[in-house]
């Protein structure tokens, strides 16, 4: 019996490494394959034809710019609209919290293809109202190749589940009511409080949301392709028929970028997640209210190094 107890943990730990090794091989293989293919020809010679092929045609510029603009806009709009909403729901309308939570989790299960199908139907009905009508104008504006607002809005929706959860968890750790009351005692309105008190304290979740939304938007294919808007992934797909090696190279670059962004998002979420920032305490100086000083003291704790 003692033998059984002694040997089985070690055996178990050895056995446990096997599936992990297999998984690591499975994950790394496609990645290494595309990396190798981008730079080495079939006979083993090194080549940069992939990279040069990308730069030559110059056709990459427009989709790249489009994707960047859309992604930045989506990230900014998501944070600017979601943070006040979650704050509001925590502070003033707790009953709406479950409604908001459900609304923000639905895009996780409703697949992008269903959302874009509905979007397509709505856009078509807008266009069907005839030339020059409001519907038609709305339709063209949303889908304009220069600034596809329809993509921005849809990407915000697609990113809601994860970012809502993150911001929600971050806000739950804050003494929100105290912060708000002390802040308004000192004369700040809603906007100032949000900007200078709340957001610095949820820096982790906000950074996570920004990175995550950016990464998802820049790599998103389904919605853009179905609406025939030429973003980077869509361009990537069409490139594969003319310059396969170039498209593989681009896909490696895109993949690495997305991975780095998502990794940065995850790391920033965990590193900045829990500690309240010391920055905001500048806005809440000496105050008589014990609650305020308690809140300020909580921020000051980080500052004091022994």
């Amino acid at each position: 019996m003692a033998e059984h107890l002694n040997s089985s943990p070690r055996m178990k730990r050895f056995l446990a490494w096997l599936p992990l090794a297999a998984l690591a091989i499975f994950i790394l293989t496609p990645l290494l394959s595309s990396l190798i293919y981008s730079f080495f020809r079939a006979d083993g010679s090194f080549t940069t034809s992939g990279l040069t092929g990308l730069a030559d045609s110059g056709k990459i510029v427009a989709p790249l710019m489009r994707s960047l603009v859309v992604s930045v806009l989506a990230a900014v709009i998501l944070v600017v609209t979601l943070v006040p909403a979650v704050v509001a729901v925590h502070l003033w309308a707790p009953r709406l919290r479950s409604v908001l939570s459900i609304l923000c989790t639905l895009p996780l299960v409703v697949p992008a293809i269903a959302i874009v199908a509905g979007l397509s139907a709505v856009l078509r009905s807008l266009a069907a109202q005839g030339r020059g009508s409001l519907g038609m104008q709305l339709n063209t504006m949303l889908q304009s190749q220069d600034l596809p607002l329809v993509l921005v809005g849809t990407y915000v929706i697609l990113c809601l589940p994860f970012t809502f959860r993150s911001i929600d968890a971050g806000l739950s750790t804050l003494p929100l009511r105290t912060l708000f009351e002390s802040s308004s005692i000192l004369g700040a309105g809603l906007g100032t409080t949000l900007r200078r008190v709340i957001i610095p304290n949820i820096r982790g979740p906000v950074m996570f949301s920004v990175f995550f939304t950016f990464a998802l938007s820049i790599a998103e294919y389904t919605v853009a392709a179905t609406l025939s808007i030429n973003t980077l992934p869509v361009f990537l797909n069409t490139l594969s028929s003319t310059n396969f090696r170039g498209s593989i190279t681009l896909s490696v670059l895109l993949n690495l970028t997305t991975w780095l962004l998502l990794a940065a998002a995850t790391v920033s979420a965990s590193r900045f997640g829990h500690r309240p920032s010391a920055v905001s305490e500048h806005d809440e100086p000496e105050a008589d209210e014990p609650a305020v000083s308690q809140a300020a003291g909580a921020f000051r704790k980080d500052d004091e190094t022994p």
Partner: protein
Amino acid sequence: MTSVPQSSPRTAGPAGAGSAPAGPRRRRALSPAWTALAPIAVIIVLFFVIPIGGMVATSLLVPGSEPGTKTFGLDNFTALGSGSRSMALGNSLLLSFTAATVAAIFGGLCAWAISTVKSKIVDSITAVISSVLANDGGVPLAFSFIVAVGNTGYFTALITAVDSTFTLYSVKGLILMYQYFLIPTMILLTLPSFVSLRQQWREANTSLGGTSLTFWRRVGLPVITPALLGAWLLMFGSAFGTHASAAVLIGTGGFPLIPLEIAGQLAGSAATGGEGVAMALGVTTGAIAVIVLIAYNALMKRSAKWLNT
């Protein structure tokens, strides 16, 4: 010190919301909430509620008795039962079921392994990489698989040595490719449950004379099963709705799948009038998704009872 005049949202609030100033205090406190909630509500309505509503409405519209008119009817849904659509539905269900099951087995195994190994490095790598990979279902994934195990891929010979009928551009290839993001999803979802299997339970099992097998059969698996089933459901839903990587790999021809059918119908609908069918497909997908979500929530509540996760 003069107090800064209240910023506009606050002053606009009570006036804008029209709530009586003399009303109960709760009413006035709600007003800034509406201003704060308005932007996200606008976005959600514009880009989520309206599309879904439009989708449902369009799916119920069928050509009326006179040409050019539309009435409500269920024709689009009955059309799902025939032709390429029913094949697509069958294929999608089969693919999602198999992919989710395979991922559940391997992913569960890996989650157990990670919780058993108890190494800090593995844990931190897992935390970062699993959430990265779980969201990685797009075009680059398909390309890397084409390069690795496509028709002229580096490792195709290896795989065909084991299974000579394998080709990437088929069900088997899709299942293999889907594992790339399904297994990390499974690990992400079930690792907390494996970790919270308490040591005391194992010790109790051993002191009562049971082996590892007994532990898993009598204690471990029954406790974890709700979490495992919930994860399987989510993976089923996720595989069902995956479009990007499948579209790159298969296009709209070879192997009908529901997301590809939807995309195909949308692209060609101006000519063939298949828009209603595409919407019906979309509604079906959405309905499956909602059912998955409800079932998942129920299972999670069950799991939380035992594991406090």
